[in-house]
C-alpha cells in the first residue's frame, strides 16, 4: 500500500516540471502554448535514445532540456516574428515535432531497461521508489527555488508584466519579443525535462506520450492553486508541484478503486474538469484570490477618500 502512495508521489514529482512549464506559459506569460504536447514526447524520446545508447543520464537529460528549449524557441519565433496566433504557432510546432521525435527515436516506442544512477540516492528503506522519491524531491525543490529567484529579479518582473498587461510592458520598454521567446523556451525546456523523467520512471518512451500534456499541466496548476490559494510567486510555484502530486494521487486512488487502465484518459478528463469547476465555485466567507481580482473588470473609479477608507486588502503576507 505504501509503495502505491510513494509511486504516486514519485510520478507527481516527475510530472511537476510539466506543471511548472505550464505555469510559466499560461500564468506568467499568459500564452496558450500547445508546443507542450510535442516537447514532452521529444524530451522523453531523446532521453530514451541517449540512455539506451550508453550516454550518462545527466547528459541525456541535458540534451532533452536543450531540444525542448529549441522547440519552444521555434514556437515563440513563429508567434513574434511571423505574427502567427499563439495557438496556431504551438500546433504548427507540435505537428512538426511528431516527425522530429520519431526521427530522433527511430521507432515509436523505446524501452529503457538499464538505468545506472550517477548519484547513489538514499532509499529510505523503500527500494527504488524511495530512491526516486528522494532524488525527485531534491531536484524539484531546487527547481522551485531557482524559478522563484529568477521571477523575483527585474528579468522576472518584466516577464510577469508581459503576461499581466502587454500594453504597459511595451510602454515600460520591455522587449516583449525577446521576453516571450526566452520564457516559452524555458517553459518547454522544463516540459522536455518532465518527459525525460517520466520516460525514465515508467521505463519506456513513446512518441504519443505527450498527447494531452497541456491540459494535464493546466489541471495540476489549477489543483495546486485551488488547494493553496497562493498570494505570491514562490508559493504559487510550490502549489504547482503540490498540484502535480495531488493529481497523481487521485489517479492512484482511482486505480486502487478498481478502475481499468483503459479508462484512465476519461478519468483524467473528469478529474481535470472537476478541478477547473472548483476554481469557479466561490465559497461563502472565502476571499477571492489575487488572480481573481486582477482579472475582474475594474469597478468604476472610486474617489480617493472612499478607497483609502478601506482596510488594506490584498497586502501580501
Amino acid at each position: 500500500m505504501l509503495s502505491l502512495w510513494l509511486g504516486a508521489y514519485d510520478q507527481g514529482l516527475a510530472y511537476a516540471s510539466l506543471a511548472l512549464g505550464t505555469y510559466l506559459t499560461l500564468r506568467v506569460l499568459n500564452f496558450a502554448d500547445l508546443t507542450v504536447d510535442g516537447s514532452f514526447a521529444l524530451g522523453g524520446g531523446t532521453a530514451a535514445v541517449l540512455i539506451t545508447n550508453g550516454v550518462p543520464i545527466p547528459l541525456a537529460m541535458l540534451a532533452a532540456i536543450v531540444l525542448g528549449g529549441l522547440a519552444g524557441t521555434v514556437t515563440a519565433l513563429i508567434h513574434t516574428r511571423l505574427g502567427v496566433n499563439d495557438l496556431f504557432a504551438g500546433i504548427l510546432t507540435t505537428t512538426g515535432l511528431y516527425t522530429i521525435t520519431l526521427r530522433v527515436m527511430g521507432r515509436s516506442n523505446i524501452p529503457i531497461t538499464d538505468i545506472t544512477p550517477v548519484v547513489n540516492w538514499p532509499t529510505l528503506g523503500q527500494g527504488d521508489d524511495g530512491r526516486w522519491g528522494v532524488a525527485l524531491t531534491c531536484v524539484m525543490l531546487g527547481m522551485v527555488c531557482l524559478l522563484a529567484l529568477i521571477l523575483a529579479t527585474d528579468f522576472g518582473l518584466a516577464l510577469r508584466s508581459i503576461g499581466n498587461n502587454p500594453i504597459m510592458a511595451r510602454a515600460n520598454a520591455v522587449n516583449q519579443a525577446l521576453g516571450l521567446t526566452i520564457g516559452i523556451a524555458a517553459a518547454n525546456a522544463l516540459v522536455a525535462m518532465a518527459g525525460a523523467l517520466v520516460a525514465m520512471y515508467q521505463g519506456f518512451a513513446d512518441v504519443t506520450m505527450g498527447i494531452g500534456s497541456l491540459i494535464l499541466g493546466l489541471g495540476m496548476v489549477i489543483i495546486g492553486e485551488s488547494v493553496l490559494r497562493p498570494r505570491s510567486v514562490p508559493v504559487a510555484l510550490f502549489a504547482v508541484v503540490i498540484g502535480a502530486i495531488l493529481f497523481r494521487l487521485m489517479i492512484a486512488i482511482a486505480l486502487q478503486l478498481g478502475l481499468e487502465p483503459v479508462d484512465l484518459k476519461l478519468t483524467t478528463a473528469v478529474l481535470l474538469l472537476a478541478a477547473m469547476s472548483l476554481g469557479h465555485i466561490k465559497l461563502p466567507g472565502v476571499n477571492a484570490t489575487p488572480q481573481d481580482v486582477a482579472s475582474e473588470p475594474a469597478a468604476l473609479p472610486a474617489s480617493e477618500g472612499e478607497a483609502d477608507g478601506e482596510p488594506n486588502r490584498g497586502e501580501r503576507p
Partner: protein
Amino acid sequence: MSLQVDQLSWGHPVPGGSWRQLFRNFNFQSPSGQFTVVIGSNGSGKSTFLNLLAGTLRCSSGSIRLNDQPLQQLSDHRRARRIGRVMQNPLEGTCPGLTIAENLRLAEGRRRSAISWRGLTGVHPSRADRRRYRELLQQLGLPLADRIDTLVGQLSGGQRQTISLVMATMGQPQMLLLDEHTAALDPKAEATVMALTDRLVRQLGTTTLMVTHSLDQALRFGDRLVMLHEGRLLGDWSAQQRQHLTPDDLRKMYGSANVTQNS
C-alpha cells in the same frame, strides 16, 4: 527644439473601402520642457497624434525627432525608454496583478534592459527599493505610501491613475504623453490627479503633451494650448494668449457637442 515633427502623414481605411487621410504633411514643434495641452473634437486626431509619437502607430511619411534623435528608427522598446505614457483607461496604465512597488520598479527600470543578463542580478523590488518608493509617494503626499505591497488591481481608478502617472515620470523620460488620463475619473479624483500632474511635470521639466476634453483643464494647465481639427492645427495659444480665452470661445471654435466642461 526638443520635439520636432515634420511633414507627418498618416491615414486609415474606413468602412466602405475608402481611405481617410487624417494627417497630411503635419508639422509640430515643442521646445524642451514645454507643457502643451491638446484639445479637439472626437476624431480630430489628438490620441492618434500621441500614438504616432509613442510608436504604437507608424506614420506613412515624415519624421519625428526627440532631442534631435529620429524616433522612427528605434525599435518599440528603445523608443519607449524615452517616453513616459499615461493611458485614458486606468486598467491599461498599470499591471494589475503586480504590487505598487513592483509596478514602480518596472517603470524605474525603463532605462535598463530588463530582459538581459543584467536583469538577473539581484532581487527587486528589494527592501531598499521599497523604502525609496515609500519615501517618493510620501513626498508626493500620496496616502498610497503605506500600501506599497498592495496589488494595483485592488486600487480604485483614481489611485491607479496616480500610480500610472508616477510610473510615467520615473526613469527620466525625455517626453511625457498623457492621453485623457482623467477622463474616467470622478471630479475629486480628477482634481487630485491633475494637481499631481502639474506638480510632477514642473518638477521634472520634461516636454509634455496632454490630451483632454476638459475645457477647464485646457484653460488652467500647461504653457501652451493647441486645438486639433481633422489632423490640422486649428489654434495655437501661449499661456499668456490663453488668458484672453473663455470656454465659450473654445466651444464656438469646435462647434461643440463633444466638449465637456468639468467645472
